[in-house]
């Protein structure tokens, strides 16, 4: 079946550096994508979303890039802080299908002091 996957299960970065978390999706009909952050013992927290008619969207310290040609999604975090340490999930919504999101397996981001 269709799936969303992440290239790297773990990522360690130095505090202050930029982080890039990647995600590959397989359904070209997906029209909406979301990045969530999940800290230990908590539910996923919305970070940023992007629709398929866009290729870039910026938030506060975060940028999401969408490359529909290669079905690739990335989350860039600028000036990574210790509080950014968490598991990051990308999720996609299949256009015209059921309403639920399909999540990838997550990337553990660790920020080193």
């Amino acid at each position, binding site marked *: 079946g269709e799936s969303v996957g992440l290239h790297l299960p773990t990522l360690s970065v130095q505090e202050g550096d930029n982080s890039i978390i990647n995600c590959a999706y397989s359904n070209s009909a997906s029209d*909406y994508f*979301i990045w*969530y952050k999940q800290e230990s*013992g*908590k*539910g*996923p*927290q*919305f970070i940023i*979303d992007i629709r398929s008619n866009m290729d870039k969207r910026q938030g506060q310290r975060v940028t999401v890039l969408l490359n529909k040609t290669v079905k690739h999604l990335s989350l860039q975090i600028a000036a990574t802080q210790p509080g950014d340490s968490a598991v990051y*999930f990308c*999720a996609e*919504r299949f256009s015209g299908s*059921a*309403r*639920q*999101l*399909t*999540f*990838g*397996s*997550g990337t553990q981001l660790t920020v080193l002091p």
Partner: protein
Amino acid sequence: GAGVSQSPSNKVTEKGKDVELRCDPISGHTALYWYRQSLGQGLEFLIYFQGNSAPDKSGLPSDRFSAERTGGSVSTLTIQRTQQEDSAVYLCASSSQSGGETQYFGPGTRLLVL
């Protein structure tokens, strides 16, 4: 409340017992979702409610799982005759409209079946 709330936060039960998990969505949100998250894994969709429409139950893993949503607000997920493989975090989310628009998650219920 300001966000999605779930109760209990933790539940330990014995194999074969029934459990009920509760979700209070954000006030005014018409869509409600249940997901299951096993240790170190992503989120697995279980069921989706939208307004008064029939729920999408396509993600329920077996007939031991059921959910209801009363009055278009609070939802209860029931697992009958629990098995050890049911141990997971059960997450609830709500959104203001259908179609998978931004879903806001609760803290989850951590279920352990002994």
